[in-house]
């Protein structure tokens, strides 16, 4: 957060202290009454302190500087008006006495940013400056005995001077009325965040306006008697002004505490409802999130549709969301929120985090899906290759060797009739050796990819497998319908690998194969009565099976306690 103390703060505070010193000198050094000047200096000091504090807390707002200026002008006016015998100095001091009121009007109408946003507001502020600075020159407000002469005061209280005075009084009242209306409009048009800050400011400003108006009404001849308590109310009202403005500025910091909640909320649920959380933090139920898309070169809404941002200058404003210097999205919100750029900065930073989070989340899911499908593709490519090798063996080497075996048998039979018994025996041995080789080749080819699986389905293939197995196999098959080829192949290899292990490593004497289909899932189980102790080792057949089953989104469970046989269960999703 951008929270640095303005470097000029110390200098301004020292300047304020000097002014207080000058203004208080007559009372302290010359024994003049302390009470009236002390009362005045308290107001000025309070403005300076609250102004500097607000400036530090909200460096982006002009309210702090305006309030500091009001305080300094207030003190300067007292320092000049009460300490010099020179008429010129006294007159300048008088001009400055009411100047802080114009600054207060400016502050209130432009609150909280300190920048006026409409022609009407600008008019109200300018008329306040004109009426107060020009008007005071003609009104002889400091009619005190022993004071130096007000050089600008209209000496006559009759004739044209009286009319001028009347005109100033009326325009001052009109100014006050415009000020009251401007505040109401400002409240009406303000976003919830602005209103929240405006809560302490509005009644204080209205109260002060009402009290001031009271004096002018009396001056115009309305029979009201200003009382001592009236002056007390006026004094308390002006004291309340800096406190109310500072409180208003600090309320925006309270609003910013919601940003902390926002960050926590968004962090807790990466796919969460971003818009709702942002609306809550900004207190703007109309807020919308636009997602930047690099390929599109534009924005999309949450549903992925192209989204156009509102044109500049309308009721809706746009704040770009950046992450690491790159545009990731935009907030479309109530224009009034621009008055609190620090809040917008904080919320858009939080939104940037959330968008980044969402993007990473989606990326991880996409990567995961990529890996999953590439795993499936690898398994499928392997199967296709095994099928191709089996076909090549069958069409090539197996055919030629079979033909060769037939030729050998024919040769043996013919020699047998001619009587060369040793040659006949040699040929018979060769034929037998070739038959053995053919048998092994056939088993190898069948293990690579059994054609029956594609032709006849899983049950037929498992029956064939049980037939050829080296140990007795009991089949309990309950999945008669054809399934997707990858599912059948995976189930077949689970059984094939399990039966091979049972016979070769587990020294089992018996195995049971079960299949069962339920709820879009094929369950395959192979249990043997061997020695158990089978484990998933890297590069083992079981690991290959796990890859195969998991590539289809399934699971493979191996239970093999030593001495209690092995149980292999595969759950494979299928339609």
């Amino acid at each position, binding site marked *: 957060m951008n929270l640095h103390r303005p470097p000029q703060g110390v200098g301004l505070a020292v300047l304020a202290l000097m002014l207080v010193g000058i203004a208080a000198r007559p009372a302290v050094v010359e024994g003049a009454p302390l009470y009236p000047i002390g009362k005045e200096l308290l107001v000025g000091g309070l403005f300076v302190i609250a102004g500097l504090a607000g400036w530090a807390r909200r460096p982006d707002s002009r309210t702090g500087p305006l309030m500091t200026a009001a305080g300094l002008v207030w003190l300067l006016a007292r320092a000049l008006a009460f300490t010099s015998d020179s008429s010129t100095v006294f007159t300048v001091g008088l001009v400055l006495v009411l100047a802080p009121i114009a600054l207060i009007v400016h502050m209130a109408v432009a609150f909280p940013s300190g920048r006026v946003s409409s022609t009407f507001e600008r008019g109200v502020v300018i008329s306040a400056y004109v009426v107060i600075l020009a008007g005071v020159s003609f009104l002889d407000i400091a009619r005190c005995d022993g004071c130096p002469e007000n050089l600008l005061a209209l000496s006559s209280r009759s004739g044209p001077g009286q009319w001028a005075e009347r005109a100033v009084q009326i325009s001052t009242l009109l100014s006050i009325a415009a000020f009251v209306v401007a505040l109401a409009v400002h409240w009406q048009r303000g976003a919830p965040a602005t209103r929240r800050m405006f809560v302490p400011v509005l009644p204080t400003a209205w109260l002060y306006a009402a009290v001031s108006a009271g004096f002018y009404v009396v001056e115009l001849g309305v029979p009201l008697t200003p009382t001592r308590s009236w002056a007390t109310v006026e004094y308390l009202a002006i004291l309340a002004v800096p406190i109310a403005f500072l409180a208003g500025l600090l309320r925006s910091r309270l609003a910013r505490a919601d940003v902390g909640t926002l960050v926590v909320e968004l962090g807790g649920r990466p796919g969460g409802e971003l818009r709702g959380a942002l609306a809550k933090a900004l207190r703007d139920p109309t807020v919308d999130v636009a997602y930047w898309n690099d390929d599109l070169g534009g924005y999309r809404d949450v549903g992925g549709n192209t989204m156009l941002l509102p044109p500049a200058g309308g009721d809706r404003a746009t704040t770009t969301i950046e992450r690491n210097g790159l545009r990731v999205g935009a907030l479309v919100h109530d224009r009034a929120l621009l008055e609190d750029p620090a809040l917008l900065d904080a919320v858009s930073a939080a939104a940037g985090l959330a968008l980044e989070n969402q993007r990473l989340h989606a990326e991880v899911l996409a990567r995961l899906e990529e890996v999953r499908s590439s795993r499936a593709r690898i398994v499928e490519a392997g199967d296709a290759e095994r099928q191709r090798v089996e076909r090549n063996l*069958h*069409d090539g080497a*197996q*055919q*030629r060797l*079979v*033909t060769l*075996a*037939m*030729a050998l*048998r*024919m040769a043996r*039979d*013919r020699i047998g009739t001619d009587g060369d018994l040793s040659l006949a025996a040699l040929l018979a041995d060769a034929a037998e050796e070739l*038959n053995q080789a*053919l*048998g092994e080749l*056939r088993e190898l*080819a*069948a293990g690579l990819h*059994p*054609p*029956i699986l594609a*032709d*006849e389905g899983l049950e*037929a*293939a498992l*029956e*064939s497998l049980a*037939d*050829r197995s080296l140990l007795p196999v009991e089949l309990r098959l309950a999945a008669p319908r054809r399934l997707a080829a990858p599912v059948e192949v995976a189930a077949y290899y689970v059984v094939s690998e399990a039966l091979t292990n049972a016979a070769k490593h587990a020294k089992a004497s018996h195995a049971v194969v079960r299949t069962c289909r339920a709820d879009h899932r094929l369950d395959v189980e192979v249990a043997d009565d061997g020695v158990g102790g089978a484990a998933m080792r890297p590069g083992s057949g079981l690991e290959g099976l796990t890859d195969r089953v998991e590539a289809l989104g399934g699971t493979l469970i191996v239970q093999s306690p030593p001495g209690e046989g092995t149980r292999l269960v595969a759950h494979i999703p299928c339609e």
Partner: protein
Amino acid sequence: MRPTVLIVDDHAGFRDMARRMLEIDGFEVVAEAVDAAGALAAAQEHRPQLVLLDVQLPDLDGFAVAEELALGAFPPVVVLTSSRSASEYGSRVGRSPAHGFVPKAELSGPALAELFDATP
């Protein structure tokens, strides 16, 4: 009279060797075919008494050809053969109307004659 035989296989080497073996063993090979379509045409034309039928053919498989042949007016004795074992085809061999299965590695005139003679 020597029994007439039709040999159906897409491998020329096997057809050649089987013809020589069967002719030595007392069969008369009246025709050869390389695929299912050729086999059905040759059976129609030559009316062989016996068909030695490879399971794996480029168009239809041997089981389908055996069914077609069994539906004909003069159904021949059909003996399936393959470089694979019968168990690799599961129950298909048993369900087929073919009269027998001889693995190619065990093919001989006497083996065929036995199946032929056993057929009424």
